[in-house]
């Protein structure tokens, strides 16, 4: 009833091309933005920031990055952990080499470095397809982790082999290091997420996105109608790498503060981000958010219920948590193989017709 497009006429292609063509969607988007930027920073505390919000924001950026590569361009990648590590180490090297430059630019530059590395590892995609490519990207994953562990230049020859984020400020407010406030780190990550999401949305609704999707849906036909497959695939790797690099840099610098590559950016991370986009929805920016939220929130929520509310032993809860996450993934797939984003679309379509479904 209240969710409808009837009467919402477009008089120009500009209107029709916009991110949220339906008025109600647009308003909801503004509300979400207002809450995220205007209200949450005043309510936030350390627990909410570090247990939910920062990982959610950062994983969302990574998921958007991987979704561009896998969801939009159809190139399945299991190298996300390694690429996040590139972002983290690039950020660390830049932070320590140029301490006077604002951290904002370091994070962006880390994204740029990752984009280059990611593009290089994307070269085999010109010859290898499907699951073969997925397994091939594991080569990147293992090699990069090995490299960062082996070459001590990357961690400034420190005895521990760990990298630590020194304190850096934005407008005089620390966003990395020991003395950060929850709202500052939250806003810092939120800004990156908002920018990433807008860029990703712009790219995917325009010609670049159409090229990627054409390659995804039918690569041969795409090439015959004029898509240069090399440029399309490599640009997807580059853009994806840019976002994943940013998320890796934030993960290290803002969220964790200290990183050891094998533990934090191992193969598990690659799988986790892939799960996020599949559960959330391939080829959907909203799905990237939904998947990240699902996999960040669910374990913590289950833990809160099991341990804090019901008082069960922590190990039983942890095991049951695995069982529930596993079962939910399967149930989700059986009920809606195309992820939370598709569930959402179906729900919206129902709402649009409500209360007169016929």
């Amino acid at each position, binding site marked *: 009833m209240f969710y409808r497009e009837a009467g919402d006429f477009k008089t120009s292609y500009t209107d029709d091309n916009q991110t949220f063509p339906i008025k109600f969607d647009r308003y909801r988007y503004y509300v979400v933005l207002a809450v995220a930027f205007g209200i949450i920073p005043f309510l936030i505390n350390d627990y909410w920031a570090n247990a939910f919000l920062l990982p959610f924001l950062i994983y969302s950026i990574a998921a958007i990055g991987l979704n561009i590569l896998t969801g939009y361009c159809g190139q399945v990648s299991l190298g996300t952990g390694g690429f996040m590590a590139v972002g983290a180490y690039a950020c660390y090297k830049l932070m320590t080499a140029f301490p006077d430059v604002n951290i904002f630019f370091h994070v962006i530059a880390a994204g740029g470095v990752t984009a280059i590395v990611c593009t290089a590892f994307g070269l085999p995609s010109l010859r290898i397809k499907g699951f073969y490519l997925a397994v091939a990207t594991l080569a990147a994953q293992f090699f990069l982790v090995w490299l960062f562990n082996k070459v001590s230049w990357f961690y400034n020859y420190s005895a521990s082999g760990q990298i630590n984020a020194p304190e850096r400020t934005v407008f005089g407010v620390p966003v990395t290091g020991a003395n950060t406030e929850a709202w500052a780190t939250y806003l810092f990550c939120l800004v990156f997420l908002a920018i990433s999401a807008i860029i990703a949305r712009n790219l995917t609704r325009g010609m670049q996105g159409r090229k990627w999707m054409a390659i995804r849906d039918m690569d041969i036909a*795409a090439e015959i109608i004029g898509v240069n497959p090399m440029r399309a695939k490599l640009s997807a790797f580059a853009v994806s790498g840019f976002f994943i690099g940013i998320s890796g840099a934030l993960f290290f610098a803002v969220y964790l503060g200290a990183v050891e590559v094998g533990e934090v950016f191992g193969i598990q991370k690659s799988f986790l981000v892939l799960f996020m986009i599949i559960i959330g929805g391939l080829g959907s920016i909203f799905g990237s958010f939904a998947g990240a939220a699902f996999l960040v929130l669910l374990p913590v929520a289950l833990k809160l219920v099991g341990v804090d509310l019901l008082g069960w032993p922590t190990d039983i809860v942890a095991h049951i948590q695995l069982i529930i996450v596993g079962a939910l993934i399967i149930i989700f797939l059986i009920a809606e193989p195309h992820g939370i984003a598709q569930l959402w679309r179906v729900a919206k379509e129902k709402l649009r017709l409500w209360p007169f479904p016929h």
Partner: protein
Amino acid sequence: MMLDSTDSYVTEDGRTIGGVVMEMKNITLRFGGVVAIKDISFDIREGEIRAIIGPNGAGKSSMLNVISGFYVPQDGEVLFHGKPRPHMKPYEVAQQGIARTFQNIALFEGMTVLDNVMTGRLNKMNSGLLAQAIWRGKAEQEEIENREKAEKIIDFLEIQHIRKTPVARLPYGLKKRVELARALVSEPSILLLDEPMAGMNVEEKEDMSRFILDVNDEFGTTIALIEHDMGVVMDLSDRVVVMDYGKKIGDGTPSDIRNNQAVIDAYLGVAHD
């Protein structure tokens, strides 16, 4: 009649057919030991509707794939505007203004009709990645200009009502039409149609024939098409190439072909229709 490659003439229905735009010279294509095309030569003239016919497995689709640059022939060359075409990737061929449709529909199933049609404009849009990322200036302007072109073709082919529908949900006949729209919107100089009417009922075939004639008429597009339905081919085309087992067994106007003994033996003798 005998024409020079640069001569032009006017058909009975008043259309002007120009000189040769594309010429296939002694094309041979093999897959391992199998010869798909054997030493075939023919030409395509500007503004004409050129049909390629032949029984199943005659090598017709392979021929289109050679023109598209998707298959690389072992022997022979392709002359485009009189000049030998160097080895090209399929997308480079497309950039030269050669568009096509496919025998088994090759639409992008995950996208809407509008987006599918818009992909046909991709060679006309060249704003950079950064401009697209911020959706300002040239990028936005290009999107709007090309959207107008796409909408014109959508109107022309009468598919406005399904503009925002995902392609996967469309019935077969409409998909064929969307595919034609995608090829057409690129304003091709040569349009290759691979069995545009396969699997259609009579009514849909009539619609499609009308669209093909309109396209040729209105935009002056050169069309090369593969079709099984002899009746349609004879009605539509200006000239016909007949292939059988990878060889050319006939080439001429529909009436020439009707009277060609080799064609009658090889093809019409085992009539499908």
